[in-house]
């Protein structure tokens, strides 16, 4: 690799998805969402969305039900902790799957 002149002498970047790289391979657990228990899914409207609010990596999209982006989900489990109806639970996952997919039971 040659020399870099990015024009900065400090760490600076434009904020966007994936700035810290693809973090899916950090994951040892993945969230699975049971739509039958999810408030938004049960009410058929974009209610609750607490998992979207609390996801520290901004990798849950609002929705009915919310959708996890497994390209970046590090499997921290905060969504499962904050879900008021325990619709989200964490299951072991060491594959580091990188496809965006709805978190549905396997």
């Amino acid at each position, binding site marked *: *690799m040659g020399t*870099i002149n*990015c024009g*900065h*002498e*400090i*760490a*600076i*970047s*434009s*904020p*966007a*998805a*994936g*700035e*810290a*790289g693809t973090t899916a391979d950090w994951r040892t657990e993945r969230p699975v969402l049971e739509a039958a228990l999810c408030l938004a899914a049960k009410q058929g409207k974009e209610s609750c969305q607490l998992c979207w609010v609390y996801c520290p990596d901004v990798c849950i999209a609002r929705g009915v039900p919310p959708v996890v982006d497994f390209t970046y989900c590090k499997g921290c489990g905060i969504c499962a902790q904050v879900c008021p109806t325990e619709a989200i639970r964490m299951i072991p996952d060491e594959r580091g799957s990188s496809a965006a997919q709805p978190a549905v039971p396997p």
Partner: protein
Amino acid sequence: MSDAGTVVITGNEAAAIAVRLAGVQVVAAYPITPQSPVVETLSKWVDAGELRAELVRVESEHSALTVCIAAATVGARVFTATSANGLAYMNEQVWWAAGARLPVVMACVNRALAAPWNVLNDQQDSMSVRDAGWIQIYCRDNQEILDSLVQAYAIAEQVQLPVMVCYDGFLLSHTSMPVTVPPAELAKAFLPRREPLPIVDLQRPRNIGQVTFADPRADASGNLCHGYMEIRALHQEALERALDVIPAVGDAFAKQFGRGGGGLLWSHLLEDAEVALVAAGSIGSELSVAAETLRSEGIRAGVLGIRAYRPFPAQAVRAALAGKALAVVVDKAMSYGYEGPICSDVRAALLDAERAPAVFGAVTGLGGREVETSQLADAARRAVADFRAGARRRRTAWINLKLREEA
């Protein structure tokens, strides 16, 4: 206090006047002896409308420096002051300010670190953060405090590095002496207001100081960005550049104000000296008197004062000490488990030098222990006697230690 001219003031008052002359916009600090009067004075001026600055009261030194970091990031000229355990409590942010390349200026009013508790002078506090990547300047008297703080902003903003102006607690901070205060207009012309930084653009938000991995990596816009190591190497290069910038700013200061100045080192009777007494800060004045005493006895002594300690002016130290027989380095701090920090640095700078002197280390004045010129002269006499007896390396001498008989 607004009138220019010569006034008799304490070191802390000189520091506060310098901050006002520099047109500082944000001040954040937490009280600690012996620094407190600096910020108390600034607070009074802000309250009276004599200083148009935001004075942010915080719950700790860690937050004080954090406020300065945030304000400096958006382009404000900032100031904080602390001492001893306050600086230790700031430590995490001390490193952040440097790594983020922010022109923060801090007065470190040198005081001993606990334990045991002590509020008096030595230089262990600032020496303990010498590796953090700040520029460190040590002052000999109150005039140098005022001049160095004004210069600190010019240096900091040129090389984008924080500057710590260090001066001895009580010995300077609470001691009154004549200080020439320059006219405000001259200072204003010397330090034009900082431009807001282009990194703060609401239309183009930026992450600053984000997680930066080992290797260079393209960011979300596809720009290849430095890895951690590149950023650190550039930081080191900026510090090396400061070796030229510090004396250049001193020269510009002398030109602007018709007096003062200040380079990397200072000296007294050094040119033809055989024995060089080396130190930083106000003890340089005591050593100058000691050198004169020694000369009256036939020992050709002189003093080398370290003004810029980081970046360390190794080349200038080599040049200044070439041909001397002996250098006695007097530290007011220890790298515990080894020796005085300035002593180690002087020794390392001389290692590959031709006609290098022997280097003896001495430590003194810890926790406010009295340092008399006669004791310094005695210590130098003992060092010369050891040298004449053939010693070329010696255990660190503790001057005026009352534990047992020491050199």
